[in-house]
């Protein structure tokens, strides 16, 4: 072979500074828009409302209210009750379904699992009001229970309604995680127990259940965190039954007491942290090495009884979980519904009205979600790449920082942003930017997770081979890494976008008249008792969200169920 002029010379000799620059930018963004607001929130919770952030002003007054104020104490207890009971109910509902879906021969298993994702992608507050339609004082179910059986239902407003709505919204988390664990469990372990003479029930009790306990705990904790941090449902169904997130909202909107709100937020987060600590402990004591290299799946029960039970239970549970969404869609077609059990006229009037008059919230939500998604793509991808590929000091801190918003309730992020960007160095309150940044921070972890998984799938040797061939860092990123992880980026981005167009809990604190979003529009309609228009917007949102999540799952070639595991 003849040598070229000089192939070595063709390689541009320059310092590869780009990775350091993007790394620095990512760190800056994380500091400025995530860590700094959280730090400021923590600090301001130790200062009285209206006072400067100074050591001299340090006080525990805001926290003392948990010992002196009855409304604080009630909210604290209510939060624990709502979180605990919802978690328990959701877990108990989900476990039989998880077992059935993994161990009983069932048709349409994947369809069932994919449908069970719907309650997770559409925010629970959209469906919350449906429970009033069903179980409220003049609700459909209440009416028939009363006229047929003479049963008086407890009021839907208060703890009962909140717990019903939250358990049925969040049980799929437990279902998906535990089903995954049961389906992946090594069948040989159970067969080994059978061979040794254990009965089916004994195996379930002594082998299967202990092995999936960590997964059950993981699912339950997610439900607990979600229920504890949820604002939308208690704000619609709570009535006088305050929980910590609604108390925060009350403090901010009633008194503009950001310092008090910060203290409540801190307590809310501490409860979450406590729950996570429990999870870590449970999983530590049960650190099983599950070898699941097998190509064989667990034996499926095929008995008629098992199949009848499994199908009835699963479809029944799913119907219950989707009931609010179906009611929302049903109500959206109601044109006259006052004082009667069922609507007296049906039609498309709500949609016509909504599409004609509620344009701005749709545009706003799309603009805000697009901007936040773009930020998530850029920084989530960079952070994920760095975290997976590079070894550096304080890497755990980067991972932790990005995952932090997962455990921060949206309303807490809202408080942090109000506290930080209302005055001082950067003033953003009332702008679209504050929503974009808060959205970005809230959802960064989504892209981070999907991209981390995608980068993990790309052999480092591919990047090494590229630089051996003479490629700079940026060339390798452009030609090798980026194309290979792009499905992960796209699916993460769609997920972010889909869940942002109806974001509620951070929006409710940060929106302004100019930047009203879809969720705020729905909320306002519900508050003013215009259920039919709320439902029309809700239906459009639910369907759009579902379509996007479906698209995302297609792009990365996973089922919708797998995306939420």
């Amino acid at each position, binding site marked *: 072979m003849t040598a*070229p002029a000089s192939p070595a010379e063709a390689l541009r000799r320059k310092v590869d500074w780009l990775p350091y620059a993007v790394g620095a930018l990512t760190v800056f963004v994380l500091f400025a828009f995530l860590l700094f607001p959280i730090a400021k929130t923590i600090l301001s919770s130790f200062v009285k409302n209206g006072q400067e952030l100074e050591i001299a002003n340090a006080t525990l007054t805001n926290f003392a209210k948990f010992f002196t104020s009855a409304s604080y104490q009630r909210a604290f207890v209510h939060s624990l009750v709502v979180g605990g009971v919802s978690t328990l109910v959701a877990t108990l509902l989900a476990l039989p379904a998880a077992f059935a879906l993994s161990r009983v021969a069932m048709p349409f298993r994947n369809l069932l699992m994919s449908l069970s994702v719907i309650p997770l992608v559409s925010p629970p507050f959209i469906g919350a009001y449906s429970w009033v339609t069903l179980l409220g004082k003049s609700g459909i179910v209440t009416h028939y229970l009363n006229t047929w059986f003479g049963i008086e239902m407890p009021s839907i407003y208060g703890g009962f309604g909140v717990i019903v709505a939250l358990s049925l919204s969040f049980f799929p988390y437990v279902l998906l995680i535990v089903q995954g664990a049961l389906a992946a469990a090594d069948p040989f372990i159970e067969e080994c127990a059978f061979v040794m003479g254990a009965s089916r029930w004994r195996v379930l009790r002594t082998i299967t259940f202990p092995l999936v306990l960590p997964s059950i705990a993981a699912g339950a904790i997610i439900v607990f965190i979600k229920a504890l941090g949820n604002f939308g449902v208690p704000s619609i169904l709570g009535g006088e039954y305050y929980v910590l997130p609604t108390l925060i909202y009350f403090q901010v909107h009633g008194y503009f007491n950001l310092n008090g709100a910060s203290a409540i937020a801190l307590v809310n987060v501490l409860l979450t942290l406590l729950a996570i600590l429990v999870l870590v402990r449970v999983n530590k004591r049960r650190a099983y090495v599950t070898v699941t290299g097998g190509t064989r799946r667990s034996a499926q029960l095929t008995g008629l009884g098992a199949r009848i039970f499994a199908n009835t239970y699963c479809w029944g549970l799913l119907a219950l979980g989707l009931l609010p969404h179906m009611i929302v869609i049903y109500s959206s077609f109601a044109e006259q519904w006052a004082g009667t059990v069922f609507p007296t006229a049906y039609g498309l009037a709500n949609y016509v009205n909504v599409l004609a008059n509620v344009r701005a919230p749709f545009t706003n939500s799309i603009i805000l979600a697009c901007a936040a998604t773009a930020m998530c793509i850029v920084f989530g991808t960079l952070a994920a790449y760095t975290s997976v590929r590079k070894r550096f000091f304080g890497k755990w801190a980067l991972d932790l920082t990005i995952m932090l918003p997962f455990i921060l309730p949206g309303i807490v992020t809202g408080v942090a942003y109000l506290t930080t960007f209302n005055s001082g160095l950067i003033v953003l309150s009332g702008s679209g930017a504050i929503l974009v940044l808060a959205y970005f921070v809230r959802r960064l972890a989504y892209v981070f997770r999907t991209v981390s998984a995608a980068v993990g799938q790309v052999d480092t*040797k591919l990047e090494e*081979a590229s630089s*051996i061939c003479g490629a700079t860092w940026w060339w390798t990123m452009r030609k090798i890494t980026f194309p*290979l992880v792009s499905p992960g980026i796209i699916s993460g981005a769609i997920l972010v976008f889909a869940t942002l167009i109806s974001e509620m809990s951070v929006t409710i604190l940060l929106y302004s008249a100019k930047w009203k979003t879809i969720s705020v529009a729905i909320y306002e309609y519900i508050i003013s008792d215009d259920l039919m228009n709320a439902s029309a917007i809700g239906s459009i949102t639910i369907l759009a969200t579902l379509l996007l999540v479906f698209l995302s799952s297609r792009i990365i070639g996973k089922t919708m169920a797998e995306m939420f595991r």
Partner: protein
Amino acid sequence: MPSHTLQLRDLTKTFEAEQGAVTAVDSVSFDIVDDEFFTMLGPSGCGKTTTLRMIAGLESVTSGTIAFDGQDFTKFSTFQRNIGMVFQSYALFPHMTVFENTAYGLRIRQMGDDEIKVRVSRILELLGLSALAHRNPPELSGGQQQRVSIARALVYDPGMLLLDEPLANLDAKLRVQMREEIRRIQKELGIMSIYVTHDQEEAMSVSDRVAVFNHGKLIQVGAPHEVYASPNSLFVADFIGRANFFPARTALRNGQGARVALGRGSELEMPLSRPLPADEGALLDAGFDAMIVVRPEHLGLAPAGTPGIPCSVRRILFLGNYTRYMVACADARREVFVDMARRVPGIAEGDQASLIVHHQDAILFSGAGR
């Protein structure tokens, strides 16, 4: 052919581990010139791969130097070194065709489309891949993928070719075929090659020179036959080929050689002894000051009663072109292998026999201070 030299001097790599610093590569020095096929051989964790990755710039250098044609290589990033590398996992870009994989390095060098076409076609033809140019990597067999990876590494005329256990993922038959092909292409292109493997047979068969590594240190460098015939240490003797070990005591030493005694009192005349490396002194058994190393083909077996070392035959394996006797001998460190061109009449499994050492081919290692 342009003349090239790669010089490693006191190359050292230490990793920070939880238990403290671990020295993965310890003061390794060697030179490679022109189109030499140089192999780094050793058990896993011996530092050979780390050394290769330091040459490639994929691993930072703790101390020491790497110079290529007199230039300090460590000052350049990987992408500036103009080298080719073949990975064990092939590392083909899954989203590019065979053609695009191969053209990758040329596109980085901003070569025109026409020239890329010419060069890629030529290298693909050399590797017998022309028909597969528009396939995607997942559609290829392991052997084909490895060829593509070699084509990709060679197409831009790199200064050297690095091969990191390239055949480890192939089946036995294909391994033999591919290693011959790698050597053929390497010599045809006249490119300096550094090959890493833990398979000593592979190393012996393809290399011009072999460097044997152990615990991060370079133990011995030489042509395959030299390393086999005169290992400089017990480790090399044991690692390269099969060797039998007899602990011995030096009884008498003169200009021609030494007379040594084995454990049971058998005495042997040995040619000149060579000293054991310092760190192998501890390998001598208590009460002995030397070790005799004999290859299986340099041992003989005779019926009991013949002068020799008494032993008992445990197993006889007929292996076609030779017969291997597995023999228990109290004087040897472990089971002795005797490879004979023919079967010895009158010896069956379970029989007592005499072991005969062809001492001109045996090696005597003496401990320090002898």
